[in-house]
């Protein structure tokens, strides 16, 4: 058994390692080291806490860890890169559920200790967390109850929210925003009821209040995320990420564990900032995204004239052979069609013939921030030709050919041209300024936001219909 000094030292080391781990993600090369900092930090934290003072129950602990580790290795090894968003969402739900369980346990322990103390009035030997509770003064116990309420509420919202987000991202639940009749009033009612339960609990009501509280929070998490459209999922996932951090921090307060607090706060604030960055990239109000649906339009959207002109692979190939500069704009459609390696082959061929080929990535392309970068990296596209919107947006005007693969809203000119458009003001990739634009798309439908895209009707746009991977594979042999 290790002394308290060891555990504290380990906590400090782990905190520093976690901070280095997050900070190290500032570039690709450092990131590979940064993830090791995180792994070592976690190992140190778990090891020293497990063998710290007052820990028992190893017969339970070690098998649970082993099983969990095996499942974790299996899942991480099996998952496709395109399924990354749903995996992250699913993992968040675990953190939320664990937070609820731990908070419940904390209250059960508190009750047990109080009951024991009331029964015989003398100090009794308690093990584990109960021993800590026994030393607490009454006002500290009140705060402990408060922390338990927070942990349960946030944890429960994270749990069901993540499960729904997982369902939507995996396509198991319909991506359209859907709410029960009553809408946000239902959420507000549930929240008010939760508050009432919390007050009851603080005033000494039984354990049932906490169960009911969790149930209400489960409902809020479910209903809140059901009401958010699939296109906003990147923000939702990062927001849930943030919640899982806050839940961990709340547990840290309950258990008086600084390492939990530090780590939870790190995760919580990083998730919050990431959500903010993404909302800014979409020119959306954070509150608006969370409450679901696009803001009301101020007038009829501009009518689109003209027709979509289709083109076949041979036409695209000849334009590519003539082009000197090519920019590829991938979107969620590329992920769905698993077309990233076909894209990579195309890029390799084009680059081999001396063309300047680059990628333009919109901050919210895909279903996770940076989703496209990960997919392209998987297909071995060098990351130094993968550029962000701000880096590449001015270059479209001097580009010969732009290939849009499965993206829609992020290349929609009405964001700039039509003040009545629901996405007006959102920064978009100005692909239409290029000499020629090819859009690889399954059919004539609208994008996730359900908005008509005038790009498809522009004179310099040609529609290359079909599954992205099949289209690109058809294209490949024709490109010199």
């Amino acid at each position: 058994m290790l002394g308290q000094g060891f555990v504290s030292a380990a906590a400090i080391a782990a905190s520093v390692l976690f901070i280095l781990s997050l900070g190290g993600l500032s570039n690709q090369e450092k990131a590979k080291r940064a993830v090791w900092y995180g792994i070592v930090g976690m190992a140190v934290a778990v090891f020293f806490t497990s063998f710290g003072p007052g820990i028992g129950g190893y017969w339970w602990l070690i098998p649970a860890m082993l099983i969990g580790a095996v499942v974790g290795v299996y899942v991480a090894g099996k998952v496709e890169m395109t399924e990354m968003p749903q995996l992250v969402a699913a993992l968040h739900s675990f953190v939320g559920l664990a937070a609820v369980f731990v908070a419940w346990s904390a209250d059960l322990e508190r009750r047990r200790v109080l009951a024991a103390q009331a029964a015989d009035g003398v100090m009794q030997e308690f093990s584990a967390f109960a021993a800590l509770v026994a030393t607490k003064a009454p006002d500290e116990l009140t705060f402990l109850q408060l922390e338990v309420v927070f942990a349960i509420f946030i944890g429960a919202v994270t749990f069901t929210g993540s499960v729904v987000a997982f369902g939507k991202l995996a396509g198991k639940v319909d991506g359209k925003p859907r709410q029960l009749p009553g809408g946000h009033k239902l959420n507000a009612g549930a929240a008010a009821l939760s508050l009432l339960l919390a007050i009851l609990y603080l005033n000494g009501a039984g354990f049932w209040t906490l169960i009911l509280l969790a149930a209400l929070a489960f409902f809020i998490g479910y209903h809140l995320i059901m009401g958010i459209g699939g296109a906003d999922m990147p923000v939702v996932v990062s927001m849930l990420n943030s919640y899982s951090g806050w839940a961990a921090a709340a547990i840290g307060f309950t258990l008086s564990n600084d390492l939990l607090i530090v780590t939870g706060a790190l995760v919580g604030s990083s998730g919050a900032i990431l959500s903010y960055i993404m909302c800014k990239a979409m020119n959306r109000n954070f509150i608006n995204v969370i409450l679901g649906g696009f803001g009301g339009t101020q007038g009829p959207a501009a009518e689109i004239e003209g027709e979509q002109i289709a083109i076949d692979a041979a036409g695209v190939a000849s334009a590519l052979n003539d082009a000197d500069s090519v920019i590829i704009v991938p979107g969620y459609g590329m992920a769905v069609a698993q077309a990233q390696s076909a894209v990579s082959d195309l890029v390799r061929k084009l680059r081999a013939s001396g063309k300047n080929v680059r990628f333009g990535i919109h901050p919210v392309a895909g279903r996770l921030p940076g989703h496209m970068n990960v997919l392209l990296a998987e297909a071995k596209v060098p990351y130094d030709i993968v550029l962000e919107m701000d880096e590449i947006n001015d270059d479209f005007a001097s580009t010969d050919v732009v290939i849009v693969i499965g993206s829609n809203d992020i290349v929609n000119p009405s964001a700039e041209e039509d003040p009545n458009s629901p996405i007006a003001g959102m920064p978009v990739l100005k692909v239409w300024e290029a000499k020629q634009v090819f859009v690889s798309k399954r059919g004539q439908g609208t994008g996730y936001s359900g908005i008509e895209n005038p790009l498809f009707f522009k004179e310099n746009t040609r529609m290359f219909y079909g599954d992205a991977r099949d289209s690109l594979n058809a294209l490949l042999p024709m490109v010199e």
Partner: protein
Amino acid sequence: MKIGAPKETAQGEARVALTPESAKQLQKLGHECLVEAGAGAAAGFNDDTYRDAGVSVVESAEALWRDADVVIKVREPSETEAHYLREGQTLIAFFWPAQNEALLETCKAQGATVIAMDMVPRISRAQKMDALSSMANIAGYRAVIEAGNNFGRFFTGQVTAAGKVPPAKVLVIGAGVAGLAAIGTATSLGAVVRAFDVRPEVSEQIESMGAEFLFLDFEDSQDGSESGGYASPSSPEFREKQLACFREQAPDVDIVITTALIPGRPAPKLWLEDMVAAMKPGSVIIDLAAEKGGNCDLTKPDERVVSDNGVVVVGYTDFPSRMATQASLLYATNIRHMLTDLTPEKDGVIQHNMEDDVIRGATVTHQGDITFPPPPPKVKAIAAAKPKKKEKEPTPEEKKATELATFKAQTKRQVGLLAVGGALMLLLGQIAPASFMQHFIVFVLACFIGFQVIWKVSHSLHTPLMAVTNAISGIIILGAILQIGSGSGVVIVLATISVLIATINVVGGFLVTRRMLAMFQKS
């Protein structure tokens, strides 16, 4: 209907309004084509090629004017030709109705319909029959070639074993179609080209052709869209500024090509005598506005004059005619497009639809009436270009002031936030137990660190970031570990489940992040 092209009577005119190629297209519309013998000779089309294309060659002009229902020409008709016109006959030519009022009266008196190719409105639909543009394009090209012919040096700069050759400096005044064509030709020959125009919105077009736009800083600049894409007369103050700009350029440039024209007015004098005097000997001025009096003081129409200081001033008015083959091909195509619009059913019957913006605009006499000037077209010529906002360079003082203001505002906000935060902490400290406050300090600092660290994370690594934070959020496992040794059965079960799922999260999260990061590679 019979469409006939007579031989041009104007002196030096080598172009022809019908080519064998356009004749074939016209026959597809159901028309029959006539051409006067020898009409295309000067443009390189002999009578046999016309015959091969199915055109009947008519011996005399008189016979042609008599037989044809539609006469197509390049130049406006001479007095004699105007008297050949008869009722119901249509004449298509460059007519210049504003300058040729007497001729217009004659045609009206003859009862003929006259379509002036120079009056085709400048709307996108009519571009295919905009003969002025196609001729101006040729003139601009030829102007550079003509300049090269009179200029004793290379256009392009070269460094050779025999010495260094500086590139020729070309100034193009007026960036209409001719000006832009001249810019394009001169830059592709390797010259350094500068260009000026009174319409600031063409600066983009000038720069796109590879020339430098000479920008005049002037409040009251013109909006070309008001006048259908053409320039209009400028104020005296503007003129002064403009001339000062040219005076500055004069000693520096080797070739000046002036193309400044204002519709319906004599050409503005822009290159004055003193500017010619300031130029280097051997320099060349090509005045494309010579026909309308010239932009240069020394210009004599149709002549090449040499100034006292050895500057060559070329005032030819027949640049398109000097490239007669090319000019005829383009002009005949413009005419052919006009006839296509006049023959909507493709059945060889001309329907003169006065409701059509293009046809209405170009028609100057019709059924015994003078229909000039036309009403303004229903479609605006070109979209009103948004004036390019020139960012005003802030002075150093202004810059400093704004910087100071933002600094102050930021300080105010930050101090405000800190004060509010501090007050809240104080309040919390009053009610919360000391042990809570200790943890709370840690919490706030950690939030702050997270806040600072994440801003630096590269955008492309946001997904790995999320996976890492997700893995790290599995730290919740510590909570479960701390509880698992409890004496209560329920707690043990709950804690065990928590440990299990948190472990999945930690292990899965880290492994998947490693997988992702391993894929990122540099080219």
